[in-house]
C-alpha cells in the first residue's frame, strides 16, 4: 500500500507540473494549447535519449527543458497569431504529428520499441529507499516551480500576461510588446511541461510513443479547469482531483467485478469526458476560482 501510494503521489506530482505549465499559457495569458502532451514528450525523449547515449543527467535534464521550451517558442512564433479556435486545431495537430514522428523515426527515437533502461538519478545511493527519494525529488520540483510561478504571477511580467489575457488591445496600447510576451509565456509553459516529461521518463526508466496520446492533453485541461484556471493553487488541487477520478476506478474494480478491463477503462474515460463537459458548462471557474486582484 505504501509503495502504491508513493507511486501515485509521484505521478500526481508529474501531472501537477504539467498543469502548472498549462496554467502559465492558458490560465495566466489566455493562450490556447491543446497539445500540452507534445512538450511533455519533447522533454521526456530529449533527456532519455541523451542519458541513454551516455550524457550526464546534469546536462541531459536542462537540455530536455531547453528543447521543450524551444519547441514551444517555435510553435508559438508560427501559430500564435492565429485566432484561438484555429490555434486549438493547430496545437492538437502538432502533438499528434510529433507522436507520429516518435513512432516512425526509429533511427532517432527507437520507434515503437521505446527507449529502455533510462538511467535513474542516484539509483545506487538509495537502493530500497529509491521510490521515497524520487517522490521527494518530484515534490521538490513541484514546490520550486510553484513558488517560482507564484512570484512570476505577482511580478510586473505576470501582470502584463494577465492584461494580455483580459484585453490584448489594451495591453498593446499601453505599449507592451504583446506578441513577444505571448511567445515567452508559451515557451515557459512548454518548458515546465518538458520538466514534467523528464521526471516522468527517468522515473519509469522507459518511454514509448503511445504514452503521449492526445487524451493526455485532455487530462491536463481537465485538471486545470477542475482546479480553477488562472491560479496556481487551483492547478495543484485539480491534479489531485483528477488523480482521484483516474485512480478511483482501480478500486471500482473490486466493487463491480463483472466489468472487464476494457469496459472499466472506457467507463473511467466516459466519466472524465462527462466531468469536463459539466465543468465547462456549469463551473467554468473551477473549484478554486481565481480571486480578482489576488496580488
Amino acid at each position, binding site marked *: 500500500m505504501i509503495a502504491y501510494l508513493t507511486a501515485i503521489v509521484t505521478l500526481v506530482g508529474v501531472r501537477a507540473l504539467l498543469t502548472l505549465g498549462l496554467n502559465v499559457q492558458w490560465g495566466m495569458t489566455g493562450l490556447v494549447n491543446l497539445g500540452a502532451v507534445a512538450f511533455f514528450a519533447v522533454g521526456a525523449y530529449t533527456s532519455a535519449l541523451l542519458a541513454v547515449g551516455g550524457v550526464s543527467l546534469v546536462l541531459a535534464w536542462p537540455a530536455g527543458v531547453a528543447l521543450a521550451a524551444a519547441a514551444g517558442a517555435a510553435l508559438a512564433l508560427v501559430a500564435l497569431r492565429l485566432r484561438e479556435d484555429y490555434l486549438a486545431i493547430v496545437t492538437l495537430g502538432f502533438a499528434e504529428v510529433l507522436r507520429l514522428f516518435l513512432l516512425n523515426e526509429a533511427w532517432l527515437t527507437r520507434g515503437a520499441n521505446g527507449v529502455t533502461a533510462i538511467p535513474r538519478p542516484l539509483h545506487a545511493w538509495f537502493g530500497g529507499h529509491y521510490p521515497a527519494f524520487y517522490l521527494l525529488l518530484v515534490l521538490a520540483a513541484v514546490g520550486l516551480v510553484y513558488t517560482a510561478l507564484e512570484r512570476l504571477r505577482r511580478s510586473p511580467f505576470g501582470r502584463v500576461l494577465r492584461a494580455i489575457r483580459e484585453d490584448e488591445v489594451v495591453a498593446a496600447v499601453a505599449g507592451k510588446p504583446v506578441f513577444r510576451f505571448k511567445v515567452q509565456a508559451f515557451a515557459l509553459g512548454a518548458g515546465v511541461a518538458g520538466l514534467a516529461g523528464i521526471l516522468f521518463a527517468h522515473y519509469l526508466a522507459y518511454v514509448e510513443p503511445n504514452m503521449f496520446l492526445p487524451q493526455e492533453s485532455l487530462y491536463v485541461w481537465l485538471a486545470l*479547469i477542475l482546479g480553477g484556471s488562472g491560479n496556481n493553487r487551483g492547478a495543484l488541487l485539480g491534479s489531485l482531483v483528477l488523480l482521484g477520478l483516474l485512480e478511483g476506478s482501480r478500486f471500482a474494480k473490486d466493487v463491480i467485478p463483472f466489468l472487464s478491463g476494457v469496459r472499466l477503462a472506457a467507463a473511467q474515460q466516459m466519466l472524465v469526458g462527462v466531468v469536463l463537459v459539466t465543468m465547462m458548462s456549469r463551473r467554468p471557474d473551477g473549484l478554486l476560482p481565481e480571486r480578482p486582484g489576488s496580488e
Partner: protein
Amino acid sequence: MPPIAQYVFNGIVTGGILALPAVAFSLLWRLLRFPNFAVSTYLTVGAYAALVLNAGVHVPLELAWLGALAATGAVALAVDRIAFRPMRDRRPFSLAIASIGVAFVLENVVRFVWGNDFRAYDVPVSRAASVAGLRVGREQLLILGAAVVLMALSQAFLRRTRLGVAMRATADNPLLAAVKGVPTDRVIAVATFGGGALAGGAGVFVGLDASIDPLMGGGLIISVFAAAILGGIGSAPGALAGAMIVGIVEEAGTLVVPPTYKTAIGFVIILAVLLMRPTGLAGSRS
C-alpha cells in the same frame, strides 16, 4: 507498384468520404461559431449504428445505412441539447473544449459496448474489377455514388429550400437573420441533425472501405479539419473541393512519405492554409 492514377482514384474515394463530415463541420462552425471536435466521432457513431442493424438484426447494409443517418442525426441533436445549448453565448473556445469532452464520451460509450476489436459489416465479398488498368472495388463505386448524391442533396437544400436559405442567412449574420424572423433554434436543430447524419453516413463508408473500431472517426479528425479549412469555413462547395484535394494529396503522398504520416500531411495543409490564406479556397470573409 500501382500507377499513380490508382492513388488518385483511391484519393477521390477518400475525398468523397471526407467531404461529408467536412461539410458538416464547416457549416456547423459557421453557424454556431465554434469548431465542433465531436463531428469526426459522429462517424464512429454512424458506423456502429449500421453495425447493430446490419450484423445484429441482419438488415441489408443499404437500409442499415439509412438507419445510421437517422441515428447519428438524433445523437448529434441530443448532444447539442444537453451539452452545447446551455453554453450558446460562451466564447467559442469553451465550446470547443466541451466538444472534445463530448467526443471522448461518445468514443468510450462505443468502446464500453463493443470493445476495442476491429469489426466488419456482413456483406458479400466482392472482387475488385479492373477498369482501364485501375483496381476499382464495387464498394468504392457505391461509396462514391452515395457521397455524390448526399452532397448534391445538401447543396440543393442549402440553395433551394426556405430553411436552407435561412440557414445560410443565420450563418452569415445571426442577429440580422433573427430580426428578419428566421427561427434560429429550428435552423440550428435542422443543421445539427443534418450534419450528424452526413457524418454518420460517412462513418458507414469508412467501415465498408476499411474497418470498424472505436477510434475510426477520431483518427480522421485532422483530415476533416484540413478539408474544411482548405475549403473555407462556411462554404459547402469549398469543403467538397477541400476534401477532394486532401484525399488525393494524402493518398498520393504515401508515394513520398510512409503511409503512417497521412495525418501529418493533413496537418501541413492546415498550417499552410492558415498562414497563407486563412479564408481558404472559397475566399469569403471569415
